[in-house]
């Protein structure tokens, strides 16, 4: 059985668990089973899978683009920039339709991610730990800006919602934008070789005839869009984009053409798993998936850092 098949099996089992578990009883409860599934459980399961896949894919792309395995979308200012865009559109046009809000968040996220990329070009590469630290500071500055805007406009409660990814609010009609991630995943699959070439470095990529700028821009756009969609619909989730690509790379290498499906599946499974755990721990209350994932993700990351042969190279 290949890794992909195993991954698929885990995914199906988790999805079944996700459909069955929740505050309301699926069978014999006060609610109609079909209705409960259609309105809440199925959308919630899809949302967790899509968000996880999107963040994991965004992680793989940003890591290859800046050639550093310790970077993830949460360390590139992308979610914070998306929040600034969202706040901006909320202030400028409070009644704007969701697609417009999403567009503003995505555009701001792209600008923020591009800013990180330009910054990364000036960071010395000798120590791979340096770039994530720079990213942490950069994200901190953008985050503080977002908070300041929110504070001034009395919108601080939104920041809290965007910062903590959780799926309890996902209902039919309120998560569909996440399907954009499926489209982005297809686009990314078509670009897979080019993104792998980015990982070889600018000189090598260009001497192989790659349109370096265009490819970087396409990659950053995929990162920004995926993250913006996740932040707007369910809230940011740390570690997914860091841990998932590293696990896959460790066992399967970096040839994205081969690995992207696995990255997407593992990202989806881990986030869905975190959401199911979050629903069970304090049943019938819930713990945000992002909180659960932070704990699991931190442990996974420490294991990756220290496991034998698991050197994380920059």
């Amino acid at each position, binding site marked *: 059985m290949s890794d992909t098949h195993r991954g698929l099996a885990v995914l199906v089992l988790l999805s079944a668990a996700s459909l069955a578990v929740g505050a309301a009883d699926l069978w014999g409860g006060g609610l109609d089973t079909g209705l409960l599934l259609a309105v809440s459980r199925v959308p919630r399961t899809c949302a967790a899978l899509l968000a996880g896949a999107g963040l994991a894919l965004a992680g793989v792309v940003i890591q*290859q683009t800046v*050639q*550093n395995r310790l970077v993830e979308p949460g360390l590139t200012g992308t979610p914070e920039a998306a929040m600034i865009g969202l706040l901006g559109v909320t202030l400028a046009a409070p009644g704007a339709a969701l697609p417009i809000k999403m567009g503003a968040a995505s555009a701001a996220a792209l600008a923020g991610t591009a800013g990180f990329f330009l910054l990364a070009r000036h960071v010395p*590469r000798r120590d791979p730990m340096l770039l994530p630290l720079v990213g942490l500071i950069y994200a901190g500055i953008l985050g503080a800006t977002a908070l300041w805007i929110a504070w001034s406009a009395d919108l601080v409660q939104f920041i809290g919602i965007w910062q903590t990814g959780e799926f309890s609010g996902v209902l039919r009609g309120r998560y569909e934008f996440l399907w954009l991630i499926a489209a982005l995943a297809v686009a990314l699959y078509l670009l897979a*070789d*080019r993104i*792998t*070439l980015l*990982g*070889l*470095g600018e*000189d*090598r990529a*260009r*001497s*192989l*005839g*790659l*349109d*370096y700028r265009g490819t970087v821009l396409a990659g950053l756009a995929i990162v920004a869009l995926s993250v913006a969609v996740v932040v707007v619909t369910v809230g940011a989730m740390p570690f997914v984009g860091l841990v998932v690509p590293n696990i896959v*790379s460790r066992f399967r*290498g*970096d*040839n994205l053409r081969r690995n992207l499906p696995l990255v997407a599946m593992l990202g989806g499974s881990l986030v869905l798993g975190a959401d199911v755990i979050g629903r069970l721990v304090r049943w019938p209350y819930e713990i945000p998936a992002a909180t659960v994932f932070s704990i699991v993700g931190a442990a996974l990351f420490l294991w990756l850092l220290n496991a034998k042969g698991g050197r994380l*190279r*920059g």
Partner: protein
Amino acid sequence: MIEVENLTLARGGAAVLRDLTFRIPARGITAVIGPNGAGKSTLLHTLAGLMRPDAGSVTIAGTDIHRAREDERALILSLLTQSAGTVPRLNVRDLVGFGRWPHHRGRPTQADARLTDEVLERFDLTDLGGREVEELSGGQKQRAFLAMAYAQATPWMLLDEPLAALDPKYTRDIMERLRAIASDPDDPRGVVLVLHDLSIAADHADWCVALKDGRLHCAGPWRDSMTSDRLSALYDTPLRMVSVEGRTVVMDT
């Protein structure tokens, strides 16, 4: 043929290449030599089209390199960069296969796969095909990157210090392979490489481009243009070319 005309390039206000004009004939091995900081690596990157000159031009095989598109350039020349920087976790076969990218641009054909296999065979990498590049020894890694550049099947190969940090065995291995590539009767390639070991340059180079402070010190066939006096003046230290067992060795005096 590589034709360089009045090539001038400044970085951060400081001139790195100053009005270089020279030619490299279409065949054989050309050594780019000169003291540290002479601009050798910059010259190679400018020849490869990766750095844009402030003035002058580079014409390779009739194409103005800085006017050509990146994908056109990739069919004229391949570049082996210094191995500094990181390598993604790719196996050797995938890495060498990416050398074919300019030809298939993401849609490899049967012919590309066959050529990749032939290149692996030629560079004695077939058995290492499934190994990760990162796991290889320094010498094997360099051989894999050389194979990748070779797989690009360009008339010109530019190599930036391909012998850096290699032990004598692999130095010899790489130089012999380059010799074979440059003089392959069926598929000869022009090989231009930055070298620091002057004895190796004297032993292998057909042509020579010597830089000092970004200026051209001399260029031409190694045998005619290189003398002990010229080398001494180039490196500002007394050097002597001596013949030992029929080979030229450069030593300090």
